[in-house]
Structure formats: structure tokens, C-alpha cells
């Protein structure tokens, strides 16, 4: 139990309480609850990050004063703090953006979409926060189910046939992922008598039950993270989802299962991970980067291009695995890999949220989102197009963006680790990303001269731009100097 442990606890419980109260409050009340919680959530995330940074150690809250293994705890380390901040800011941006589409005016009747949107958003927020601060593998299972139950309906909020089918497909993938994970949880308990990953750290033995458990949990989490070849649910789910939903799904939901995977590999069983298995994960990541980018390049619709770009960008996260497994004894590049991976997750969250929202504004204004039909978009919608381009810079890894810093750290770590093949993948991925971003920008920047440049100022444009700017500015922060994301790394524990 540490002094500021209540901050992450509140960061989880307040959105969950808001979601519960949103049901009786109705659509308009739920919207107000959400808006009231945004500044509170940001303050809690900033406070948690400050406490972690100041103390140089994780902040811990023991639920009901019961310590693990009997009890449960919340523990915010550097990775948690970074993700809490990301979630709070992205949720705030998405909530403000979504008021135009899901707001309810005073006295207006409650609509289905507005009734559902706000509690689902709160549930996604609370569940994301829970995923990054819970230490118990079964509590994490419940958090994953919360994410699934909220993400499924938000994908098909428009109620059209195609989105309902995409939601059913997503649900099947997600449920299969959950049960495989749960199976691993059962074996871990059978082998160690605890599910707390802090207690498990360093205790794990190289035995059959451990390997079977971790293999099952890894497979389940990969399905939820949509790593190639388990990505099939992701593009259709994004195709018809509201832009706000796509933004949250790509920015946060797929990252939740990734964080658990990192905890599992480098928390529960550091040193046990077979280098060959880590190379397989890295290879899947590399395949995702290359094939996802090529698929993005071939899409006709802007929204699907952005969705396939998510498939590709998730791939970068998995380059962490072979590099960290090779790392023991090489703390300098392990630290760099770790920071690079976390920064990739964070900067992609901001960049992709911005891209989906920008694509949403463009599609709403043009009435369609075919890339061939984007001519003139830059004159009509200069701010969203600029935001799309800025976010694209971060995805490509152009300096000084956050994506550049992340990819540079991963690339140099790969060379230092003697695994130069990952560096080639990162470079190739950057070129492909550049091509598909260029394709969109080139189309948007051609004017067909027939349309008058009638701008309709829209407050939402500022939100989209702000998200893109954050993804760029992240590269200017001396993140490595802060050392925040290094705090509490379990693979360093003796």
C-alpha cells in the first residue's frame, strides 16, 4: 500500500460507477456524467504519473486491505501511468468530438444510439484503466470481458446489417480469445496457487504447465490484439463503426490485451521465454507491418485504409518481444526497446484516433469516403486533412514525431541486439506507410476547381488537430530522460 495508490483505484472505479449510473440517468444524464468525469480522469492520470515519477516506484492500492495472493491489488507502474494518461486524453477528445453525433438536447427524446454511446464509452475507459492497473490475472480476464462487451455494441451502433455481422464476427473472435486466456489462468493457479503477476514474477518455473498456460494465454490475447493472422475481425469492425468508436477501438481496446501480453511475458516469466517463441511473435509482427501496409495501400475507402494501417502499426509493438527476450545482460538496449514499444503504443493511439476522427469529418462532409473521390477535400476541410497528414508523419516515423522516436529506438535496439532483420522491416514499413499516407494526401490536395472553397468551421476540427499534434510532440519530449515508463518493470526485479 503506497500513499498515492488511491489515484489509480479512482481512475478505475469512477468511470465504472459512471457507466452504472448512466443507465438510470438516461442519454442526456449519461452525457453529462461523462463530461463531468473527463477532467477528473485526466487529473487522476496526471497525479498517478507524477506519483510514480516522484517516488520512482509503482503506486499500490490493496483492495479491502487484503494483500495478494488472498486479496487483490491495483498497481500503477510507469507503463500503467503512460496508458492511463493516454486513455484519459483520447477518451476526452473522443467524448467532446462525439457530442455532435450523440448529444441529446434538453427536452429531446432519448435515442437508442445516444443511450448506448455514453455508457459504452465509460465502460471502455474504465476497462482500459483496469487492464493497466490490475495485478490479478483473473481480474484482468474480467477487464477483457468488459472491453469486449462494450466494444461489440459500439461497433454496430448504426444498426445496419453489415455492421451487425462485423460485430458478431468480432464477438466470436473476442470470446474465443477470452476463453483461451481463462484456460491459461486456471493452469497458472494450479501450478502456483496465486494469480498475482507481481508475486508470480521470478517464481515461474520452466515446466510444462507454465508453458501450456502461457501459450494459451498468448494465443487468446493475440486474437484480441488483432495481430496478423488473427486480425480478420478488425477491418470489417471499423468499416461501419462511428468514427468515435473506431478511434477508441484502435487507440485503446487493442492495446489493452497487448499490455497484458507484455506483463505476462516480461512480468510473469522473464527469462523463461524461449527466444524461438519470441522470434515467432516478432515475425508475426513483421508480417503484420508489411502485409497490413500493403493491404492499406490497396484499399478504396479511406476508413478501411486507416483500419489496415492499425493492423500494420500493431505489428511494430510485437518487435519488442524478440528484442527484450534477447536483452538480459544488455540493460541499455532493453530499456530503449521498452521505451520504444510503449511510445509506439502511445503515439499510435493519438495518431490513429486523430486519423479516424479526421476521416469521419471528411466522409461526413463529402458524403462518401472513396479515396478516388477525395479531390478538393483539402480546400473544404484544410484542418482535418492537415491533421491526417501530421498523424501520418507519426505513423511513418518521420522526425520529430512520437512515431519517429518510437521506431528509432526499436530500430537501433534491433541493430544493437544483432537482429538487424527487424531494422529492415521497420524501414520497409515506414516506406509503405509513407506511400499510403501520400496516396490520401495527394488525392485530397488535388483541387478539381469546380467546388467553391466553402469552409464550415467546426469545433471538432480542433480536437482532431490536437490529437495529431500530441502524436507529433511526443517525439520532442525527452522521454528516455524521464525514465517514467521504466518504473516498476518486473523483468528487472531480482
Amino acid at each position, binding site marked *: 500500500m503506497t500513499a498515492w495508490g488511491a489515484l489509480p483505484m479512482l481512475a478505475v472505479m469512477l468511470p465504472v460507477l459512471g457507466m452504472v449510473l448512466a443507465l438510470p440517468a438516461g442519454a442526456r444524464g449519461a452525457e453529462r456524467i461523462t463530461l463531468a468525469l473527463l477532467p477528473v480522469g485526466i487529473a487522476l492520470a496526471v497525479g498517478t504519473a507524477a506519483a510514480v515519477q516522484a517516488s520512482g516506484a509503482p503506486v499500490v492500492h490493496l483492495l479491502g486491505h487484503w494483500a495478494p495472493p*488472498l486479496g487483490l491489488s491495483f498497481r500503477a507502474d510507469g507503463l500503467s501511468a503512460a496508458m492511463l494518461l493516454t486513455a484519459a486524453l483520447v477518451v476526452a477528445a473522443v467524448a467532446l468530438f462525439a457530442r455532435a453525433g450523440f448529444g441529446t438536447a434538453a427536452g429531446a427524446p432519448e435515442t437508442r444510439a445516444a443511450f448506448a454511446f455514453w455508457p459504452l464509452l465509460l465502460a471502455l475507459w474504465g476497462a482500459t484503466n483496469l487492464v493497466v492497473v490490475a495485478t490479478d490475472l*483473473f481480474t484482468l*480476464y*474480467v477487464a477483457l*470481458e468488459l472491453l*469486449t*462487451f462494450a466494444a*461489440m*455494441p459500439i461497433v*454496430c451502433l448504426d444498426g445496419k*446489417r453489415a455492421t*451487425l*455481422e462485423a*460485430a*458478431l464476427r468480432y*464477438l*466470436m473472435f473476442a*470470446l*474465443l480469445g*477470452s*476463453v483461451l486466456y*481463462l*484456460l491459461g*489462468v*486456471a*493452469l497458472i*493457479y*494450479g501450478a502456483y*496457487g496465486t494469480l498475482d503477476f507481481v508475486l508470480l514474477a521470478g517464481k515461474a518455473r520452466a515446466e510444462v504447465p507454465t508453458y501450456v498456460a502461457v501459450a494459451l494465454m498468448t494465443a487468446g490475447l493475440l486474437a484480441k490484439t488483432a495481430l496478423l493472422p488473427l486480425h480478420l475481425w478488425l477491418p470489417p469492425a471499423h468499416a461501419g463503426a462511428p468514427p468515435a468508436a473506431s478511434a477508441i477501438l484502435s487507440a485503446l481496446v487493442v492495446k489493452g490485451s497487448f499490455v497484458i501480453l507484455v506483463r505476462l511475458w516480461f512480468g510473469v516469466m522473464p527469462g523463461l521465454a524461449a527466444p524461438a517463441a519470441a522470434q515467432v511473435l516478432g515475425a508475426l509482427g513483421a508480417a503484420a507491418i508489411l502485409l497490413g501496409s500493403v493491404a492499406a495501400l490497396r484499399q478504396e475507402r479511406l476508413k478501411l485504409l486507416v483500419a489496415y494501417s492499425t493492423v500494420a502499426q500493431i505489428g511494430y509493438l510485437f518487435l519488442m518481444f524478440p528484442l527484450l527476450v534477447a536483452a538480459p545482460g544488455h540493460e541499455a538496449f532493453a530499456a530503449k526497446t521498452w521505451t520504444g514499444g510503449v511510445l509506439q503504443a502511445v503515439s499510435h493511439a493519438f495518431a490513429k484516433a486523430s486519423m479516424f476522427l479526421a476521416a469521419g469529418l471528411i466522409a461526413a462532409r463529402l458524403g462518401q469516403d472513396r479515396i478516388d473521390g477525395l479531390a478538393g477535400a483539402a480546400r473544404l476541410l484544410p484542418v482535418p486533412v492537415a491533421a491526417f497528414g501530421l498523424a501520418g508523419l507519426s505513423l511513418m516515423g518521420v522526425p520529430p514525431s512520437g512515431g519517429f522516436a518510437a521506431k528509432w529506438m526499436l530500430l537501433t535496439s534491433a541493430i544493437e541486439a544483432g537482429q538487424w532483420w527487424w531494422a529492415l522491416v521497420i524501414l520497409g514499413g515506414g516506406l509503405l506507410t509513407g506511400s499510403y499516407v501520400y496516396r490520401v494526401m495527394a488525392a485530397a490536395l488535388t483541387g478539381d476547381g469546380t467546388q467553391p472553397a466553402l469552409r464550415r468551421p467546426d469545433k471538432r476540427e480542433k480536437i482532431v488537430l490536437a490529437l495529431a499534434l500530441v502524436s507529433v510532440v511526443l517525439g520532442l519530449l525527452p522521454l528516455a530522460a524521464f525514465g517514467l515508463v521504466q518504473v516498476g518493470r518486473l523483468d528487472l526485479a531480482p
Partner: protein
Amino acid sequence: MTATVFGLVGALLTGIGLFGLLARPEPLLRILAFNVLGGGIFLVFGAVARRGAGAGFAGDPVPQAIILTGIVVAFAATTLAVALLLRIASDDESDPS
């Protein structure tokens, strides 16, 4: 002994459920297969609980409580999958195209 028997039954049920989930194309049968699979997983967990019997309890109460929570969560998942399936079916009815 009982624990091992039902643990192995759980392992077999997991395989059976997984096969149904992957090989049967009908959504309702997939939902049933998901529940067969869930039953298998809970039995594996139950075997773990039984192995941990002690201190006067017939099984370790911690995994037993986890299974209870898990059964309710799996039920909620089933209801959502069914609701989604029925919604798609009712769309087919009103608009056969």
C-alpha cells in the same frame, strides 16, 4: 483421483468445444460450442480447486469463487451473442434481400 478424472474431462471438453466453434458455420451452434468449451474450462479450474482441498474445505475456495464469477460472465456473453444473432435474423425477415 476425482480431480484428475474431471480435469481430463475438462481438457477433452475444451477440444470438443473448440472444434465446434471453429468447424460449425451455424452461429447458434457456435454459441453452443462456446458454452461447451466454457464448461470444459471451468471443469479444469474445478479440478485445480479440488486438488487444493485443505483446511477443512472440500476444495480451495478461491478458484471456486472465480469459477462462479466466470460462469455468470460467460452467461452474459452468451446472451449478447444470442441478442446479436436474433437481431440479424429479424433483419433478414423484414428485408429478405
